[in-house]
C-alpha cells in the first residue's frame, strides 16, 4: 500500500517537473518572440533612417514635432511601465486587489498614451501632412504607428487578463501570463525610447 502511495507521489513529482519545464519553455519562447519583434522594428527604423530626408517638398520633422507633447507621452508610457512592474511584483505575492489596481493604472496610462498619439496623428493628417505626403511622413507614421498598434494589442491583452484575474484566482499560470505581459510592455517601452531618441529628438535637432 505504502509502495503504491510512493509511486503516486513520484508520479506527481514528475508531472510537477514537467509543468515547470513547460513554463520555462514558454518564457524562453516569449523572449525569442520579442527578439523577432525587435528585428521587425529594426527594419522599420532602417526604413525611417533611409527616408527621413525625403520630405518631397513637405515638412521635415523639425517643423511638425511638438516636443513638450511628445515628452508628456513618453512620461505616461514610462510611468505605465513602472506600475506594470509593480503589478507583477504584487502578482507574485498573490495580492489580487493590488494587481487589479496597478494593472488598472497601467491600462489607463497606456490608453492615454495611445489617445495622445492618435490625436497627434489626426492633427498632422488634418494639416495636410498625412502618410501620403512624402516618404519621410510614410516612414514616420508607419514606425510610430506600428508601435501604437503593439500598444493597442498590449492594452487588449491587459484588459482580458484583468477580467480573468478578477473572476478567478492568481494561479501559477496566471502569474506566468502576467509576467509575459509585463515583458511585452517593457519591450514596447524600450522601443519607444528608441523612437523618442531617433525620430523625435534627432528630428527636432534636424539631424
Amino acid at each position, binding site marked *: 500500500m505504502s509502495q503504491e502511495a510512493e509511486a503516486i507521489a513520484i508520479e506527481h513529482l514528475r508531472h510537477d517537473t514537467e509543468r515547470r519545464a513547460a513554463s520555462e519553455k*514558454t518564457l524562453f519562447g516569449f523572449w*525569442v518572440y520579442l527578439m523577432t519583434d525587435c528585428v521587425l522594428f529594426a527594419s522599420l527604423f532602417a*526604413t525611417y533612417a533611409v*527616408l527621413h530626408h525625403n520630405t518631397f517638398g513637405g515638412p521635415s520633422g523639425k517643423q511638425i514635432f511638438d516636443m513638450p507633447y511628445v515628452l508628456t507621452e513618453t512620461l505616461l508610457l514610462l510611468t505605465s511601465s513602472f506600475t506594470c512592474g509593480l503589478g507583477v511584483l504584487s502578482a507574485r505575492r498573490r495580492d489580487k486587489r493590488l494587481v487589479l489596481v496597478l494593472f488598472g493604472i497601467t491600462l489607463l496610462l497606456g490608453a492615454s498614451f495611445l489617445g495622445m498619439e492618435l490625436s497627434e496623428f489626426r492633427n498632422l493628417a488634418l494639416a495636410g501632412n498625412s502618410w*501620403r505626403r*512624402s516618404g519621410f511622413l*510614410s516612414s514616420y507614421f508607419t514606425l510610430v504607428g506600428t508601435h501604437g498598434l503593439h500598444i493597442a494589442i498590449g492594452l487588449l491583452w491587459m484588459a482580458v487578463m484583468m477580467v480573468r484575474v478578477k473572476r478567478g484566482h492568481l494561479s501559477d*499560470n496566471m502569474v506566468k501570463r502576467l509576467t509575459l505581459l509585463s515583458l511585452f510592455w517593457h519591450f514596447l517601452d524600450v522601443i519607444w525610447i528608441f523612437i523618442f531618441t531617433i525620430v523625435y529628438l534627432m528630428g527636432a535637432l534636424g539631424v
Partner: protein
Amino acid sequence: MIGAFANILGRLTLNAFPHDPITIGGAVFMVGSFLAVMGMVTYFKRWKWLWKDWFTSLDPKKIGVMYMVVALVMLVRGGIDALMMRAQQATSVGASHGILSSNHFQQVFSAHGTIMIFFVAMGLMFGLINLVLPLQLGARDVAFPFLNSMAFWLFVAGMILVNLSLFIGEFSAAGWLAYPPLSELHYSPGVGVDYWIWSLQIAGIGSLLSGINFLVTIFKMRAPGMTLMKMPMFAWSVLGAMTLVIFAFPILTATLALLFLDRILGTHFFTAGGGGNAMMYVNLIWAWGHPEVYILILPAFGVFSEVVATFSRKMLFGYKSMVWAIWAIVFLSFTVWLHHFFTMGAGADVNAFFGIMTMIIAIPTGVKIFNWLFTMYRGNIHFATPMLWFLGFIVLFTIGGVAGVLMAVPPADFQFHNSLFLVAHFHTMIVSGVLFGDFAGIMYWFPKVFGFRLNERLGKYAFFCWLVGFILAFVPLYILGLMGATRRLDHYSASLGWQPLFIVAGVGALIIALGVALQILQFIVSFVLRDNTRDNTGDPWNGRTLEWSTPSPAPFYNFAHIPEVSTKDAFWAMKQRPKNEKDKELPYHDIVLPQNTGVGVYIAAGAFLFGFCMIWHIFWLAALSLLGIIILAVIRTSRDSHEQVVSASMVERIEAERLRGGEAV
C-alpha cells in the same frame, strides 16, 4: 441593387473569373482534382477520420506528413508552371509566339518561383523537421504543439491563396520577389501583387512561429545527457536554419507590409515619386531573401550528414568543424545580400565588400563538402537511394557553387546579372541542394513514419530521371546565359540561334517530369507492396541516431522511456553495448501529451479570409475575420490545461502489442 452588392464585395466582380482558354483549363483541372479528392473522401466516409486523426492533430509526425503532402502537390503545380515556361521558350521564336501571352507568361514565372520556394522547399523542410527533430532529440513533442499546428495551417492558408488566384482574379506578374516600382499600384493596378503579398505574409508568419517553436524545442527538450555537442548533425543544421528564420522572417513581414501600405494607403516607401526609394525594397527583400536560401539549404545539409554517415557505416567526419561551418554560414549569410544587385550602383567599395564576403561564405560550404567526402573515404558504402541523391547532390552542387563564386566577382556579375546563367546557378543550388536533400530525407525517414520502406528500384529510376533531366534542363541555360539570353524572356529573335538549346532544356524538363511521375508511382507501389518492405526492427538502415531506437512506425508518444544519452551517435553506441536485460524491466510511466484541437485550423481559416478580403478590398469582412481570430486566441488561452494523460498501463499495452508484431498497431 447590383451596385450596392458590388460595393459589399469590394473589387470582386464577375470579371475576376477566367476568360482565356489556358487559364480556364488550369482552373477546371484544379477545381476538378479538388472536387475529385473531396468526393473520394466523402465516398469512403473519411471526413471524420481526416478531421479527428489528422487536421486537428498536434502530433508533429502527423503535421510533418501533412506538410509533405501539401508540398508534393505544390511541386506538381510549380512543375506544371515550369513545363509551360519551357514550352513557351522552346517555341516562341521568330514569327511564332508560343502558347502563352506575355502577361500570362509573367504570371506563370512569378507563380513558379513563389510556389517552389514558399510552398515546396519550405514545406518539405518544415515537414522533415516535424517528422524527425523530436525523435532525434529523444523528445516526445515539440515545445509548443499548438503553435506548430497553427503554423502548418497558416502555411496551408497561404498556399490556398496562391492557387485561388488562378481562378479568381490573377496572380502577380512582377516576378517572385515583386520588385517595385513595377509592383506598385501605378504599374500593377490589379489584384495579382496583392495575392502575392498576402499569401506570403500569412505563410511567412507561420514560418516565423515554426522558427521560434523549433529553436525552443532544441534548446529545451533534448534527452538527458544530450549536450549540444552530442546532437545529431541534422538537429544542428535545424538550429542554424531556425536562428536564420528568427532574424530574417521579420524583415520579410515588414517589407511585405510596407509594400501593401504603398498599394492600399498611398504611402511612399518604394514608389517612383513622392520621396519613395525602390532600391530600399530590393535591399530589404534580399536581407531576408539571402538568409532564406540558407534556411532552405542548411536542413538539407543536415539530411546529407545523416545519410552519408549511415550509408558509409562511419561516424560523420569532422563533427566539430561541421558545427562551426553551420554557424559561419549563419553569420555570413547576413553579410552577402547585396550580391543580388551589384548592378544597382552602390559603388565599387560596397560591391567589393559584398563580393569578398560572398567568396568567403563558400569556404564553410567547402568544409562541409570535404567532410562528407572524408566520411565516405574508407567507409563501407551502401548505394541505397538516399545515398544516390547525396552523390548526385555533391557533384551538381559543387558545379553550381563554383558558378556562384564566379558571379561573386562584381565586374563579372555585370555580365551575368539577370541572365539565364544566374537562373541556372540558383536552380542548381536549390534543386540539387534543397530538393535532392529533401528527397533523400523522405526516402531515409519514410520507414520511421509509416513502418515500411519505399521501393528501391523505382526510387533509383526516379533519381536517374531527375539527374539526367536536371543536367539536360540546366546546362543549356548556363550556355544560353553566356550567349546573352536574359531571364524571363517570352520571345526572342530566330537569328540569335538559341532555339536548339531551349529545346534541349525543354526535353530535360520533361525527363524531370517523368522522374516526378516515377516518385508518385513509387509511393503507390510501395504502399501496395508494403508487406514486402515492412520494417519490424525499427532500424532498417542500421542507423546511428535516436530516431532508430524506437519502433517503426514511431508510436504517437515517440518513446515509451525517454532515452539517456552519453555520446554522439547515441543509438549506435547503444547497439555496440552488450544487451543488458535490465533495460527491459524499466517501469512505464504516465505520458502527458497535448489534446487535439481544431483551433489552429479555425485561426488559419480566419487568416485566409482576412487575406482574401484585403486583396479584394472587402474591408467589413476583413475586420470581422480579424475579430474572429482575436476571439479564438482569447478562448484558446483562457483554459489552463490542454493536456491528456496516456496512462502507464496503456503505454504498457501498446508496447506489448508492438513486441508481438506490429501489424495491429
